[in-house]
């Protein structure tokens, strides 16, 4: 039985449809990430669950109870915000104890619980510090402890790591997942960072234009994107436009043998999706091997263990991730052949134009 249900949620701001009928169903103790570019409606959805905003239509059900019209302070939702949410006039201890004081817990109970939670987030040494004496990462840990203190029915995280440095971000997201698994708390996590979403979630829902494009496990989302948007948004993807012909897909004047093209009607326009890491790159030897596209290496981007090559030729524009060692032998300007795998390549029907993905702005320091 689902624990948290968002049923047909609609919310508009003026003429802008922020949420256009989203449906989510989440089991108890599960971790769902809402992933999408800015303006896709993910934060609106979270705010509706928290009770800070009301839907125009639809219901929010937690543990069988309709909470759509319940005030935020009666919902028992633990919320962690992007930043600046700690009460500046209170120490870490007082911040964490705040929700417990409101619930009228005895002082001794409160103290024990606060110490327990600050210990859980690794801040037992900083209980008496004020927010301005804590680093950004520490502040978010305190915010997490504060949200958990009230034993919320659902934990809501609104881009809690987006204002932190890259290293702290990775560290803290792993900790959030560890704590979530430890406590078995149902969690809704909003982020625009696909790596973050894929690495910590049980389920990921990619949102675009107020709708859920696709929801599934991180592996499913990566390996089997259902729409061009998801394909583009999750990971890096080569998107090759082509037409289905006998024996495959025609692209850049070549017929690519692609398994998935068999059951498509001939002449239909499709998008061939190829992950850069599945593209094999070698020096072009003029033999015209099947499934290869020939072009010149125009850029090399060092990514650590792999190097990303951009290969451009006549009608060809492909990126490929090759082991860095191998990339050393393929400097910029080298004529190369990029071999696409015949299997495991996804095809999507191409209807109209592809959506542009808005760049998520880096939150400015306020």
């Amino acid at each position, binding site marked *: 039985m689902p624990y948290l249900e968002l049923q047909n949620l609609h919310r508009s701001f003026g003429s802008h449809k922020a949420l256009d009928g989203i449906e989510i169903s989440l089991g108890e103790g599960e971790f769902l990430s809402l992933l999408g570019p800015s303006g896709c409606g993910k934060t609106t959805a979270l705010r509706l669950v928290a009770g800070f905003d009301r839907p125009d239509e639809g219901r929010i059900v937690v543990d069988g109870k309709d909470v759509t019209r319940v005030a*935020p302070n009666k919902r028992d939702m633990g919320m962690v915000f992007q930043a600046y*949410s700690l009460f500046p006039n209170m120490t870490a201890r007082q911040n964490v104890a705040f929700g417990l004081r409101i619930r009228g817990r005895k002082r001794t109970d409160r103290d024990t619980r606060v110490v327990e939670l600050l210990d859980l987030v690794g801040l037992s040494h900083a209980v008496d510090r004020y927010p*301005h004496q804590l680093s950004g990462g520490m502040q978010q840990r305190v915010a997490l402890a504060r949200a958990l203190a009230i034993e919320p029915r659902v934990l*809501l995280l609104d881009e809690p790591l987006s*204002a932190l440095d890259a290293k702290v971000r990775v560290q803290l997201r792993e900790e959030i997942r560890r704590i979530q698994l430890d406590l078995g708390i149902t969690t809704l996590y909003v982020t625009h960072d696909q790596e973050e979403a894929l690495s910590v979630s049980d389920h990921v829902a990619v949102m675009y234009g107020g709708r859920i494009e696709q929801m599934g496990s991180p592996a499913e989302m990566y390996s089997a994107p259902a729409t061009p948007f998801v394909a583009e948004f999750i990971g890096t993807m080569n998107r090759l436009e082509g037409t289905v012909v006998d024996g495959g897909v025609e692209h850049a004047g070549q017929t690519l043998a692609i398994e998935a093209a068999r059951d498509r009607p001939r002449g239909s326009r499709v998008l061939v999706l190829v992950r850069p890491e599945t593209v094999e790159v070698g020096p072009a030897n003029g033999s015209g091997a099947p499934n290869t596209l020939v072009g010149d290496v125009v850029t090399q981007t060092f990514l650590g263990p792999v190097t990303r090559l951009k290969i451009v030729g006549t009608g060809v524009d492909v990126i490929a991730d090759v082991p860095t060692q191998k990339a050393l032998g393929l400097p910029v300007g080298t004529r190369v052949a990029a071999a696409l795998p015949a299997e495991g390549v996804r095809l999507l029907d191409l209807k109209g134009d592809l959506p542009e993905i808005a760049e998520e702005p880096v939150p400015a320091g306020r």
Partner: protein
Amino acid sequence: MRTRRFIAPSSLVWLLLGGLYFFIPLLATLLFSLDSNQTGKCCTLHSYGWVLHNGDFWHSLKISLFLALETIAISLAIFVPTVYWVHLKVPKLRPLLAFLALIPFVVPPIVMVVGLLNVYKGAPSWFYDQPWGFLAAAYVILAFPYMFFSLDAGFRSIDVHTLTEASQSLGSSWPRTLFTVILPNIRSAALAGSFLALAIVMGEFTIANLAQFHTFPIFLQYVNETQAYPAAAVTLMSFCITWFAMLSLLFVGRKRGARGAVIAGVR
């Protein structure tokens, strides 16, 4: 780490000139207040004794201090929730409020008092004839710009939305959010507004005079016209009262809570 500051000699000169500009009149007033009433020579505390033993001094001071406290209390009670609400829910109204707050600056006190006397004509006598009623109402209007702009700055320095929502998600009601989360974080702003209001009430002459209430500035004016040496003494004493109020503001405002807006480590 604190960087060491060097003060250029030229700025020292300006500082000194500025200091003299402020202190010479004070010093002259002090010396004058110490002169004897009979001989006109230095030095006696007679004038101070005269002021301290004057019943009107204490009476008018009491009225003005009470009025100041009343004005501060009413202003805070009205403007803190209003500015909070405007920042939180209807930020579009902020320019309108800022415009309204400028009106007491623009309308001359003489116009205001005539208007107010007319508006309140027919009001019950406990209101119309008492400083606690009529004058307090007028002073709340006078203090409005100072309160508004101080509070507005205070609310801008904190993230009102996030703090309110964080407090609510933890189960806090609206009043509790206001008193335990918002108010402590705009304390300096509320204090600044309060002391400006205090300074206004302690110095306001026109309205009190025209409405015929015996406040401290009226007493000051009366002494000024009748007693040369005690006038200097009472001027200095009123200066000290204001000074004391400023010092307490500095003292209270320096405590924690004033750093609401400064959060380290977050970009």
